[in-house]
């Protein structure tokens, strides 16, 4: 199973080879979806890790031992569905196909589990109906 985490690095951890350690020591495939790393400053990383819970838990413990804050971001993008007019503008930018148009009803379908939280839909929606929820 795939799980997404938003990792917040304190300034003094940024130079640690965190991803290398996740792969080599914990045997976890890691995809980096978004990165904002600046040596000497706090950094953020959005990653997708593949593995069962028992495999992921030690990895998360390791990250936390490095003072990295790990927040599960399974449902980070929130859509105000009731206000949606089903124009489809958001589907233009959704590479992960979390947002697609149902070709029969022409209503917007949102598969949150496919969302990689790239954030492009937030700017693409002309009604401003998407929000990022970092606290999940």
């Amino acid at each position, binding site marked *: 199973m795939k799980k997404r985490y938003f990792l917040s690095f304190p300034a003094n951890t940024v130079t640690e080879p965190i991803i290398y350690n996740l792969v080599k020591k914990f045997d976890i495939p890691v995809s980096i979806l978004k990165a904002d790393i600046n040596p000497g400053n706090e950094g953020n990383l959005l990653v997708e890790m593949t593995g069962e819970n028992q495999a992921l838990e030690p990895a998360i413990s390791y990250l936390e031992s490095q003072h990295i804050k790990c927040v599960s971001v399974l449902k980070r993008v929130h859509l105000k569905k009731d206000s949606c*007019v*089903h*124009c*489809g*503008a*958001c*589907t*233009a*930018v959704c590479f992960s196909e979390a947002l*697609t*148009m149902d*070709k029969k*009803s*022409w*209503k917007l379908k949102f598969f949150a589990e496919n969302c990689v939280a790239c954030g*492009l839909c937030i*700017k*693409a929606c*002309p*009604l*401003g109906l998407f929000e990022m929820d970092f606290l999940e």
Partner: protein
Amino acid sequence: MSSSKSFNEINEKIAKGEAVVLTAEEFKQMAKNSSPKEMAKKVDVVTTGTFGPMCSSGAFINLGHPQPPIRMEKVSLNDVPVCSGVAAVDAYIGATEVCPTNEKYGGAHIIEELIAGKDVILKATGKGTDCYPRKEIETRINKDTVNEFFMFNPRNAYQNYAAAVNTTHKIKYTYMGSLLPNLGNMTYSTSGELSPLLNDPEFRTIGIGTRIFLGGTEGFVSWNGTQFNTSKPKNEYGIPTSNAATLAVIGNAKNMSTQFVRAAYFEKYGVSIFIGIGIPIPVLDEDIAHRLCILNKNIETNIVDYGNPEHPALGKVNYEQLQSGLVTFNGKEIRTAPLSSIFKAREIATILKDWILRKEFMLNQPVQPFPVNSSVKPLIIR
């Protein structure tokens, strides 16, 4: 014996509850098994619909005279400037007008909030005259406190529109949505075979005075829209393959619904407004029935590069391909996305059909046809 019908004959059938009314999609489905001649006999009215961003929109409002009165020369609603150069207390709320302190909020939002019945803050100033001594005013208004509040949109319901792509290496934020670099996506903004002016491409039934669905209530075609263009190249089915004719429309905004009028903001472009329009097409004869049989695969449009400031056309695509979600262009598969809601367009066509079936909506014969030879001039800098 003539097989044609008049507007009056169709209206009589509507009044008697005998009219056969179909949405454009239902008509096309039925036409698979019947000839246009048979369809013209079987069906009286076909309803069309569109719901998309239509920037060239706005609303006139008469704010009422306070005591003592003021000749309003500078007016804002919720800090959005509105055009007040029309007499003392008339104003025009342009949909794309922007609030100076919030670029994502503008005239469209004011129109939507007024339609929703909300209060907005009116601020106005004038120099003070002998007949209008007051120099400033600040108060709250809503659609029930003002006199008239009617939508008057100079250019809506475009007959076809380009499909947009971006060949540059950077994302482009446009009124055609977010266009990903390197032909990463393609957006389009027409409801295809449901769209009003694609079902009556030569305006045989649509003209000045046509009664329409506008924003959830009845409205009228008031004129040919701005940039009305009949000189665009047409394909073998008589459909212009780029943006061509347009409609100027008018209707009572006090009776409209925010289900069919929605403010919008396109990133780094600005404020716009989604407008819902539905037009009934009377099936007067075989030729009109034939036009109504037009299918998405027969409606083509240009693929235009919005990454290039000159917007060159790169090729052609049809609406069956666009609505499939994937278009192959120059050997590359490009994902497509609509900007105009087909779901809402269907809803509008269905509501309009119900109004007609309930005898609440009669057809108007145009009082004047649209121009037959019209082109668009560029602005020459001289």
